């Protein structure tokens, strides 16, 4: 029967639309258990491709006849082989084009809203890794925040709407993904802003981004107010955009809060984290819409695929914002830490400009889920 190719973009649509899909993941069990495609109505079967070399007869009855079937592997080769075997056995199947590699690199732009004077703000959802980045556009100018290493996507997107990237920001020195900020800034001749306290070891030029600083995008003044908010890293900085959106970086997520240990200083920074979440953020308007740099679970996605919620609602619903006792908070944050992200030290060094791994190595370093939160 038929054998089709499905792109990461098509899978993204199914995640956002909560469509049904049966995924046969033919990677190793350990890879599957560590990280897989997530969707509310997705069903999974994990059987390594090398267990199917002699035939797929044994698994045919484990595959539902009435669902769309997608075969997934690391890079696509094995999934094509298995999909062909299933197709010969009489099933209609697809394989994921580019495999988990493509899934990890796919960004889905979602419009968050309009800004004053005709501006717009977009969220780029990296479903495969839970990373969120942003583009703010006004009067032909654009700013990119917390970009991934897939820099072409931002550059092409800005081009497509006729905007020139003039400012690039990182809210902090990332430990879970490789930033494309410096590359975009260089190619677009834009200004690259970094919090100086996170940038003490970087090997390149940058503009120091400090609390109270205001950067304007377009002549119509979309203001980006920097708000020093340490805790995830010592330099972590949030942005208030157009007095309406709070870009919270890795400090506050929808369903969790940032972890303070990825630079090895959990005990020192947990106090800063509490100060930011329980004092500085409390002074902001409840009406601000929180736009974090990550999501952890697929349930954090809104109907339209965006990840955003009012600060006031998070103060009520987010467990990490509701621990009155400081000791208890300390214990949650330092005692409950999930495993550290894959290759996080090397990723930090890459983001500092200390090492320059080739693309394949960068891809490998980013494999797996992000693990920036404690819950």
């Amino acid at each position, binding site marked *: 029967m038929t054998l089709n190719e499905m792109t990461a973009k098509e899978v993204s649509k199914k995640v956002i639309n909560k469509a049904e899909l049966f995924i046969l993941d033919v990677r*190793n*069990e*350990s*890879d599957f258990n560590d990280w897989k495609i997530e969707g509310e109505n997705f069903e999974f079967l994990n059987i*390594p*491709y*090398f*267990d199917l*070399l002699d035939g797929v007869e044994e698994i045919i009855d484990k595959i539902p006849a009435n669902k769309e079937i997608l075969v997934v*592997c*690391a*890079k696509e*080769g*094995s999934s094509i*082989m298995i999909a062909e075997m299933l197709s010969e056995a009489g099933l209609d199947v697809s394989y994921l084009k580019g495999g988990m590699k493509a899934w990890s690199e796919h960004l889905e732009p979602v419009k968050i809203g309009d800004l004053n004077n005709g501006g717009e703000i977009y969220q780029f959802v990296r479903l495969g890794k839970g990373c969120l980045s942003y583009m703010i556009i006004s009067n032909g100018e654009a700013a990119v925040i917390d970009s991934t290493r897939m820099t072409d996507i931002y550059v092409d997107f800005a081009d497509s709407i006729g905007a020139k990237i003039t400012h690039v920001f990182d809210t902090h020195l990332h430990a879970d993904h490789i930033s494309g900020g410096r590359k975009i800034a260089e190619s677009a001749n834009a200004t690259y802003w970094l919090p100086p306290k996170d940038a003490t070891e970087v090997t390149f030029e940058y503009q120091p981004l400090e609390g109270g600083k205001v950067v304007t995008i377009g002549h119509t003044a979309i203001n980006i107010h920097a708000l020093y908010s340490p805790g995830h890293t010592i330099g972590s900085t949030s942005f208030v955009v157009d007095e309406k959106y709070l870009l919270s970086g890795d400090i506050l997520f929808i369903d969790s809060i940032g972890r303070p240990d990825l630079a090895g200083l959990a005990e020192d920074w947990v106090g800063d984290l509490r100060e930011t979440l329980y004092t500085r953020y409390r002074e902001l308007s409840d009406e601000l819409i929180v736009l974090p740099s990550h999501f952890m679970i697929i349930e954090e996605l809104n109907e339209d695929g965006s990840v955003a919620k009012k600060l006031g609602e998070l103060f009520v619903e987010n467990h990490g914002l509701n621990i009155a006792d400081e000791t208890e908070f300390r214990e949650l944050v330092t005692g409950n830490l999930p495993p550290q992200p894959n290759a996080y030290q090397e990723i930090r060094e890459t983001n500092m400009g200390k090492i320059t791994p080739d693309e*394949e190595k960068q891809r*490998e370093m980013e494999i797996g889920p992000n693990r920036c939160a404690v819950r």
Partner: protein
Amino acid sequence: MIKTNSVLDAKGLACPMPIVRTKKVMNGLEAGEVLEVQATDKGSTADMKAWAESTGHQYLGTVEEGTVLKHYLRKASGEEHEEKKHEKVISNEELLQKIEENQKTIVLDVRESAEYAFNHIPSAKSLPMGELEERFSELDKESEIFVICRTGSRSDLAAQKLTAAGFKQVVNVEPGMSQWNGPTKKSVNE
């Protein structure tokens, strides 16, 4: 240089081909023989390990040489089920104690050279089963010799052969390297 029975060149091939080819070559090998697979696909290491585990073959290890990964695998042998015949035996723990008491204790490792390369007792001498007879002269007939393999089965056979050839104090180590908890050494750079 690690000796193997066969070498497969899977350089430049992307997943799933390294495993597909490995499986084919493995089918043609005799039980217990060792295969070297040369690959450039970085994902091949994890896949070789997982594939070997799922099929019962032994994954011995991988050596990285520039961009080439050399994987070493030993075909499943079913040796664990054979009945052991050599009478003088010693446990892993007792052997470890003897080595600690006397650094000159003679340990003869009769596994394939690739198995030895990735994991062996530091003082052990490598003498693969297949070369045993032709290299008898390297050993002293009067000394106490502790023969070890992975599970105690090949070493049992080796111990019988040595005894028949006139070696007076041959002891088989059970169960052998698969359960060894004492110090070990590698003679390759992984």
